[in-house]
């Protein structure tokens, strides 16, 4: 059981142009044993790099014993993640 749960509301799309910004934002929050919830209600689009960031986040959390959860993802994003079978690794809703 994680010691801490953090919810991060993402503002704007998770795309290549904002990659560094998003990465930094998330990296800040990640600490040992943290469960991270990304709220994507303001995100309409995720591109390849975005997927990479999310996977990297998942990997980082996993290595530190935490978990990634995605909430409020738009239907398109959910579909994309499901098609790529990412939903097997990341709790997405």
């Amino acid at each position: 059981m994680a010691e801490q749960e953090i919810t991060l509301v993402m503002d704007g799309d998770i795309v290549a142009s904002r990659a560094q910004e998003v990465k930094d934002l998330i990296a800040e929050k990640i600490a040992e044993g943290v469960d991270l919830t990304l709220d994507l209600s303001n995100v309409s689009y995720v591109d390849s790099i975005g997927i990479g960031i999310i996977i990297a986040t998942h990997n980082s959390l996993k290595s530190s014993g935490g978990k990634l959860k995605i909430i409020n993802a738009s239907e398109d994003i959910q579909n994309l993640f499901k098609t790529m079978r990412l939903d097997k690794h990341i709790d997405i809703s």
Partner: protein
Amino acid sequence: MTMLDDETLQMYVEESREHLESIESDLLAIEQMGEDIDEELVNKVFRAAHSMKGGAGFLGLNTIKELAHKIENVLDMIRNRELVPNPEIVNILLLAFDRLAELIDNIQESNEMDISEHVTALMSITSGSLPELEKESVIEVEIKDRQDRVVFTVKEFDLNQAKKGGKFIYLLEFDLIHDIHKKDKQPYEVIKDIQSTGEIVDIKLDLDAVGTLEDGKFSNKIPLYVLYASIIEPDIFNTLLNLPEEQIKLIEIDESKSIVESKEADFGQREDTGETEEVMDIEEEEQGHLIEEEIESRVREQAVESGPKEQVQATRPVASSPKVKPASLAKKVSPSKSTVHTDAQPAASMHAETLRVHVSLLENLMNLAGELVLSRNQLMQAISQGDEHEILNAGQRIDLVTSELQEAIMLTRMQPVGNIFNKFPRVVRDLARDLGKEIELILEGKEVELDKTIIEGLSDPLTHLVRNSADHGIESPEERIAKGKNPTGKIILKAYHAAGQVNIEIKDDGRGIDAEKIVNKAIEKGLITEEQAKGMNEKEKLNLIFLPGLSTAEKISDVSGRGVGMDVVKSNLDKLGGQVDIETAKDKGTTIRIKLPLTLAIIPSLLVSVGEERFAIPQVNVDELIEVPASQVEERIEKVGDADVLILRGELIPLLSLAEILGLKEYKEESSFADKYKSKGGSVKVVIAQAGSFKYGLVVDQLHDSVEIVVKPLGRHFKNCQGYAGATIMGDGKVALILDVVGLARLAELSAINVEDKVEDRDKVEQTGEEYHTLFLFNNAPGEYCAVPLDLVARVELIKASDIEVVGGKKVIQYRGGSLPIFALEEVANVGHLELEGDLVVIVFVMSGHEVGLLANPPVDAMETNVKIDDFALKQPGIAGSTIINDRTTLVVDIFEFFETLNPEWFKERKEAVEEIKKEGERKVLLVEDSDFFRNQVKKFIEAEGYKVVAAEDGQVAWDYLNEHPDEISVVVTDIEMPNMDGFELTKLIKESPNFSHLPVIALTSLAGEEDVEKGRQVGIDDYQIKLDKEKLLQSIYNFLTKKAA
């Protein structure tokens, strides 16, 4: 996920239809083989059901998916020999496939359609052995990438399923960074793209390769593995996806053992050592081998030679050990056999045939196009140089290339007739079941090709004919046994080439068609009269089947003859330019032969012209071409009722003037009705056109060559123009319209019925005796309307008053090289004075062998009427009485009395003599004539003369009659051309028989060539009379009778 965009859906529907096409015959074949199944065939059907299922699942067509899935289960059991395909099971499958076809046809509503009945039926078959199915699906297969890493573990069953339908399985490696992001694509689009051309079996992101947020590796690569099934072939696959070839791997699964074995020979070593990438881990040998094979071996061969290793490595998303690579590369390059094998294997499972045909055709077309370009260059050069010789050469070349090009392009439209033949096994099977008959259907010549449009139009008529054969032709097994036939009836459906046409035969060994039954039905329905029926030969009787109205609305169980929609069959085939022919023999069977042109787009046609206009008549509609020389026009063209007819070998053929129907010429009152048909030289040029069941003569100004024309459809603005079938562009760039002979006949209000009606009306005249008259109407003095029976009129001539010469107090006109005496009605009867001025009409009669003319005023007309003649009020010499026609009192001229009064001596002799003969006993004339019309006419006027007439429709009937009634007949009048037994044969029999050799035989014929006369003399014909010169004939009969009496 559902992606119901139109294009994908359409693709699916088309593909499914293709799958469904051959299923029926395959299932029937499976049924026939029973226990001894042909795995290949079962697999084929299985694959069809499976790929339909796959596509349906992908498109969210759940109903289709479910039904296809259930079908698949049953087929799988058959394939595994857990189930014997007995007729019951096959029936359920057939019905299920039918339903599936309906679902496909109504794809949008398919999800709401009910399939429960079929599902239940299918389930009841499978329920017995479901566990085995599940057991099979547990077997798992590992799919490895080229680095031998296991990427996917899939159920073998799923993999096999995915592969059905000729699909290839690929393992794709995408890198979200390099292959998607850097190419400015979006992951979602890429997935959508690949889903539109195949099926994603499994997909996986390699999370570990991505790294974490912290380490610097991030965003180098995000590998996405896709296990993908698609019908796209390996050689073009990478272009489609725009992926480096190294990242596409073809996964090959071999199901047939023999191939696996041969592969083992090649790869045996590697399989043993397990170090190879070509061979996948297989958990259960019997389930078949999965052999993976890299499609790009050949390409890599090159790659190795040029050594762009870095590039290969760079694009490879999964970090791989460099040590493995060269080794594996070297390995793969060496067995070049496997590459060949990879290429060949999928080709066999695909619908490679169509592709191969197309490619060669395309190549051929390419070649020809190249040739054409060359020829054009040649031509251009020749033109610019003004070299006439070279221009001619180039022209010839272009001519050659064009016709070859045309042929090649036509080929692309050709489809095997098997496309429609294949549905008949099912039709026949179902019918046989329903009717309790045993029928074997044999298909021959399925590969014969026909134009697409013809194939499409052929389906309905053929179905009709095959159904008829099964229903009415083939007898029940008991009946067949009783007849000593094989209880299983046979229907052969056969297509073959003959004389540039395709013939299709539907042949059965059933009871045959009873022509008499058809005739009786036709009479019963009032389509023909009994009189007409008697005059028909076997073929004509059989052809009655095609008469509209003969088809019965009664149930098909009414086995009184065929005729269910045969008129529809005929008209459908007419549309395709086809001809139908029936042959039948009692208890032996029936053959219906259809002759079809290879294509409708280019047809051989006859060119004709009227005035300045040229027209094309499709050659199939042209029966023959007749040029009536100017000198014979008067004899060969006659007026019957209100129709002009051409006398052709004793047949009356209605004539139409093309110019008149199309309104190209204005016809003034001409001196003779036949004149309007004459072309410049004075002769009449006639195209005898075959319009379905009847013929007519189309009169044109000029006949030209027969050419191949390209049919261009008429625009919709011309839709209502009857008489034209299309247009074409002639060699000189001008447009010629293509005539629709059936439409023209319709325009002229001419039809078989119409012609027959006239004959029928004539019969009516006879049957009702005095009540009916066909009258020829003319005027005497202005306002004085007169009529004579048309039968008595030989000819009508239009003359000018100035043509009349008065010689020795008698009026004559120049007529056919002689003088024709003419008389006015007032010379005998007390009627108004006829002024000899302007245009006049001479009605020519033949009286006792003399031609005489009666003067009259135009207009003239002919009409059939049943008015009563008042022989009291206006009776006077030369006038039989009066009647009311068109509200006018009309004098009916007694023409015999008229001329008798004028020339009593002409008639005296014979009339008295006939009376004399009669006193000695009644004289019977045996009249033998096959044509209804002539028989009735001749019979009538011989009877009018005071003799009894016995009519016979051919020589055989006449001969039988003579033998049954010896001593009854005094003289024989016979036609020459007749079916069964002709006039020569009959005469020979008569003259050789001791009982009848004394009988005089008069030949009545339109054939009067010298040879015929000579031949007639040899067999003993006593006299020749040209058809319908009644006075001469009567005189001849009289002569023979008196000779005999004397």
